[in-house]
């Protein structure tokens, strides 16, 4: 922690968006702490600095509640990647992405990467009920002392829930997002690369999601580091604060 708190300047910004209760906080928690635990509905937004190799990635976990809608565009300003999260058992959560959240990303970078993530796949897909590797499985056992809360009645009874959102629905939305952003489908990353189904509960696909995204924002990181190097040296001496701001608005 002292490492991180020394405020390495973040290289890029990644933002988690999506309706309340879809599992944004749980996903991030699973990725950073390797655990699934009880959450409470996020207030405002929470900022995290994730060390990824030599890079510092800032991640904003935002609140899905309508109450905090006004802050969304602030969190998204200069974002290099936005993770649009929905709940595969809840059609409305996908619809909300288009209705409520997409417009918030107007302040993101022009080359921002959009990922569509259908969470809670464990409720609908048997394959997502298994932990991705033994590592996680053993951890689940350890936790049995203080059991993780039942996330839904279905998971309690071991039944699967009706899946309301298919990967095709997500891919179609991805297409509409590109169109909204005025991007050519051909020249953009394909839906297969940016649509994920995950389970924060079992860990299914969670690392895959974050690692894939970080790989994709790497060019942005490098470009930004480059820009910083190219920028005149006086910058460092004279106006730390302003250079800070400028690079942020320029890239991430």
């Amino acid at each position: 922690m002292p490492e991180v708190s020394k405020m390495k300047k973040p290289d890029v910004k990644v933002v988690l968006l999506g309706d309340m209760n879809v599992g944004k906080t749980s996903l991030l928690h699973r990725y950073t702490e390797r655990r699934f635990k009880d959450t409470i509905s996020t207030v405002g937004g929470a900022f995290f600095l994730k060390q990824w190799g030599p890079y510092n990635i800032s991640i904003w976990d935002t609140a899905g509640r309508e109450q905090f809608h006004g802050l969304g565009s602030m969190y998204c300003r200069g974002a290099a990647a936005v993770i649009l999260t929905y709940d595969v058992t809840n059609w409305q959560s996908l619809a909300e992405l288009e209705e409520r959240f997409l417009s918030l990303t107007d302040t993101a970078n022009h080359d921002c990467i959009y990922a569509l993530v259908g969470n809670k796949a464990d409720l609908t897909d048997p394959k997502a009920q298994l932990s991705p590797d033994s590592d996680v499985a053993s951890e689940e056992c350890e936790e049995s002392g203080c059991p993780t809360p039942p996330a839904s009645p279905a998971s309690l009874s071991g039944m699967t829930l009706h899946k309301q959102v298919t990967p095709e629905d997500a891919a179609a939305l991805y297409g509409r997002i590109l169109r909204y952003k005025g991007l050519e489908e051909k020249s953009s990353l394909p839906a297969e690369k940016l649509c994920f189904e995950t389970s924060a509960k079992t860990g299914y696909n969670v690392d895959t999601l974050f690692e894939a995204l970080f790989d994709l924002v790497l060019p942005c990181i490098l470009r930004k580091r480059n820009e910083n190097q190219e920028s005149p040296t006086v910058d460092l001496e004279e106006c730390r604060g302003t250079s800070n701001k400028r690079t942020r608005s320029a890239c991430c």
Partner: protein
Amino acid sequence: MERDNHQEGEAQGVKICDPPCESNPPADTLATSLSLLGNHMFPDPVERNNSTTVNKQELSNPILSDVTEEEKSVDAEPQSNQVTKLEAEEAEISECQNNASSQTLDEGTEDAATDNDRSDSGEFVVAMLAKAKLEEQGIGVKGRSSPLLEAGIQESPAFMSHRDEDVTAESWRQHRKHVFVLSEAGKPIYSRYGSEEALSSTMGVMMALVSFVQSGDNIIRSVYSAEHTVVFLQKGPLVLVCVSNSRQTEQQLRGELLYVYYQIISMLTQASISRIFEHKKNYDLRRLLAGSEKILDGLLNLVDSDPSFLLAAVHCLPLASSLRDSLSQILLKAITPNLVFSILIANNQLLTIVQEKTVIEDARLEPADVHLLLNLIGASSAFQAGEIWTPICLPLFNPDCYFYAYISYLDPPECTVCLLLLSTDKEAFYAVAECKRKIEEAMTAQNSLSLIAKVQSYSVSQVGVSDLRHFMYKPFDVPDNYRQLTQFTSPEMEAPYSSEEEKMRLLDLYRYMHSRIHSTSRPLKLIYHVAERETLLAWVTSKFELYTCFSPLVTKACAITAITKLLRWIKKEEDRLFIRYPQKYSTTPNPSKSSRGGKSDQQDSTENGFLSLL
């Protein structure tokens, strides 16, 4: 929350309180209104409610934020044996009475003063609440409009807690204190136990009660029954209802409802709530509050278990003044434009607080606002590793605007020391986060965290008075001298108050003493109360308010000597026990350390005032 109410004088006249006899208009009409609501709910309303007590007040007092206790002026039938017995064991210290400044103390007749009109009648309120519920199985959730909510409901087990309680079960009715929030249109907004949907018709009944009384240009304030007190508070378009069997007074319960209201305001602001309901009378506010239930639940748990709320004062952690000063200095040096408050908290208690002086000229943070902030932090700390940035309104500071709160723990993974920075600039996150780095650096350099880690609350044994078990001491601010945060100090609750039940029992005794001290009809300055398992002494002067708890064997004379010693001890320790000189900064920081003298003078006279009584 207890302030004198200027409205009260006028209110007395129009206040209607029913003696337990037939054919009193309010009860009658109430009964009628209830039966109009639907006969299924009240099979025999008229017969039961002829002794119900309903307190109403003229609409000319639109603001209900304050509290009155008129019911006491209309004393009624004798109470249950329990109450009488309690009272009999109690006596005022008459020898002090004559000396104690101008105010007179009540004696003897006192016994009758605490009564509320209690009778079985109020049973029906409970019956009403219970009956109404049976109804709803049929009603279902037709009122729901938001898809957002459906998502929430689908997953409701995730909310855990009491949300999915069976509202038809006896256990639901047994809860010590129910709190409901509804809109003027009768839409459920919040229920402490059980989901709002399941309770929608119960809330409908409540709203019908409110609007019925309103239609006669009155405001319903409370309903009493043998076991329950139902208190209503209307604030703008929101109606808050408390159904309690905790024996707390209406005044105290209304104060608690006010905290609930403020917490809602802190999330949405008063202006936006008014705007929403002006725009759409039957708006479903849960759309905006969904997800905040845990914050309200947490608040109500704190209200029940933390005397800060009762005393309307802030509890700060005892700290060597040198350490507190150095922490304040660290905060003073880490500032940025638009930063207005910097607060350091450990284990939910204040370590120090500094504030901008020009932005908030002559203003200070109200204890209630601090309580709301602390509750928010407590409730949002589930995910402690991140740095939180969230809008928050401080209702007593300004109910219509937002601050932006930066919340971060300084000692992960333990997460006991929390930094709270309040800015007026929505975009200031990165600048404010930078302040945190500075604070963190300075604290590391000075080893502050490990010093804080050693700090503990204190034990009453440190006072060195053998029969003293616990106390709460709240010095009053003297506005002319120095405006500072109202605080109180109190030792840990130790044996025999270690279990949750015993803690609660002591708090209930304090609440009882508090209600006597703050009775609007017969305020007392000094109460010596011999309870079954302890003896309590409460004393209020113009300088302080003090509640003490002794072992049951203590004599009156011993207690008084003990209090003298206690006050001396507090005086000696006050630099450690309180934040004495809240510091201010500005963009050109150079905080003055004035007004030292003023505060000390006050404390001196405090003690002298008491000693002269003996």
